């Protein structure tokens, strides 16, 4: 790990970090504010007015009438997937794809550091950013529920929802990072690191719309983050967590191996 590079990365990316944090905080406060502990049925009735297909596609489900069931369905069904995904794509590209494409990586590699310590620093920056984003939104969510509905949140399940989300983006980050590292040209690096997660995302939405194509969900990484199962307390979510962790470790190591041998035409 190169401290100077890590500091540089953080300085160069804190603005988009803050933007994503602000947007996610906004959504989480709106969703939490919508909850009405006395009349869960009323919310359900309101949701019934919306087109069902749209609700399904966005994974807006009311899992149970309590607070965790409510935000576990709304926030952790859609917002938690969409925004960190965009954040991860942008950050991976900035950390690897861009500097390889424009050649500015030459300045980093012409200082006395190995490629290995360089890429480990970039991977750490990505993971640290994802972690901090999800950690901050977790804390903010807890504060908001505490202010509006003191004592109503099932903290244990809430933390599990967020641990799962972190692992999901650990895995997605490894995919986008891998794409950014393997390709020399920006159009390939950015093309694939957008196409793969967005493709998974679309598959996941389609699979939720109709039972006929529900099998499609086995082709999407988002299936490994099952917010409903986490809230209802299924035991097999741990297997999914483990799978996400394994994918992430595998692809981050893969990126490193590729990068150590790679010809850089810079």
């Amino acid at each position, binding site marked *: 790990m190169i401290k*100077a590079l890590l500091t*540089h990365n953080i300085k160069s990316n804190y603005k988009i970090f803050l933007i994503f944090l602000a947007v996610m905080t906004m959504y989480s406060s709106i969703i939490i504010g919508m909850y009405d502990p006395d009349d869960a049925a009323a919310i359900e009735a309101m949701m019934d007015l919306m087109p069902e297909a749209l609700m399904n596609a966005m994974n807006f489900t009311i899992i149970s009438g309590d607070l965790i069931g409510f935000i576990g369905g709304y926030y952790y069904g859609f917002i938690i997937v969409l925004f960190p995904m965009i954040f991860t794509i942008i950050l991976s590209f900035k950390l690897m794809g861009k500097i390889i494409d424009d*050649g*500015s990586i*030459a*300045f980093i*590699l012409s200082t*006395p*550091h190995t490629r290995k310590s360089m890429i480990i620093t970039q991977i750490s920056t990505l993971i640290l950013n994802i972690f901090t984003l999800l950690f901050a939104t977790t804390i903010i969510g807890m504060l908001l529920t505490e202010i509006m509905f003191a004592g109503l949140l099932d903290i244990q399940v809430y933390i599990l929802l967020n641990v799962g989300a972190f692992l999901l983006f650990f895995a997605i980050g490894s995919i986008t990072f891998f794409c950014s590292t393997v390709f020399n040209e920006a159009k390939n690096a950015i093309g694939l690191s957008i196409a793969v997660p967005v493709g998974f995302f679309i598959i996941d939405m389609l699979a939720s719309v109709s039972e006929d194509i529900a099998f499609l969900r086995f082709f999407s990484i988002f299936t490994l983050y099952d917010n409903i199962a986490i809230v209802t307390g299924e035991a097999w979510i741990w297997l999914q967590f483990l799978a996400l962790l394994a994918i992430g470790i595998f692809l981050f190591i893969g990126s490193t191996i590729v990068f150590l041998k790679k010809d850089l035409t*810079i």
Partner: protein
Amino acid sequence: MFSISFLTLKTLCIPYFLDTKTINYYYKAIDKAFTKEPLMIEIKNLTKSYGTNKGVFNLDLTVQKGEVFGFLGPNGAGKTTTIRHLLGFITPDNGTVKIAGKDCFKEAHTIQKDLGYIAGEIAFFNHMKGAEFLHFIAKMRALSNLDKMHSLIEFLELDIHVKIRKMSKGMKQKLGIVAALMHDPKILILDEPTSGLDPLMQNKFVELIKREKKQGKTILMSSHNFEEIERTCDRALIIKNGKKMALSNIKDLKNVERKIFYVALQNTKDKDIILKSDLKIIKQNHTDFEIEVSGNLDYFIDVLSTCKIKSLDIKKQQLEQVFMDYYKEGGGKDD
């Protein structure tokens, strides 16, 4: 010469009072002391192919300690490709590339401690200010003494409080020069370092290179500008289509250099002076001449001094022409 006589000595001594091991030890030590400076850059039989005539093919190149070495060739000749190997950015298809005895790919990070590099097409972190960028590079190098950085900035008259994105090409080039030299490296690898600099700054850069040379730095500098290499380098290698065309001392190269002058006469009657002289006339249009001069200029000046001259101009020669001439003169062998 010394080694040969020592060899005789060695043969004589063995049977009497010294064993082979001791003899060899002294032999090697003495040999080392009497050979030239050690090789700082050593490229052996390097091949990296991107297709026919694209890349580098069977290239040998050595640069000694304290030498300024020019690497000349037209665009697409393979200069940058060779330099990428030296920086450890790419691996050879074949051959070895070493700096100070170390493999350039495997030990890139160790080599970088004493290396300064200016890329052919420099890409910066555009969102930063010049000063921010230089401090970042200094931190990456764990460089605490910034004296050289400040003196370079002053010397090049660079305004570092500007966002890099807003800098002109020349300013960016200067910034690259500061970043490459500020840690006072022993070896400099410069890929077309003066591109984007105005003539005044190009002169300043030449001065800078001469100063670095005086301090004993080893410098490899690529260029497609013959003049620049002529002014700074001790030796030059000429490359085209990835293959070595010539390796020579700059002095030799200068001797065969052909210069073409445009001469316009004031009076028609002076025409005959030129026509009757031994000057090589390439073109003539009334009183306008194109005259080729190789090597010494004395005779040319002598003849001209007897005429009234309206204007005199020198034609900038393409590098390719210079080394084609050199090649024709039989300079294609190693010195």
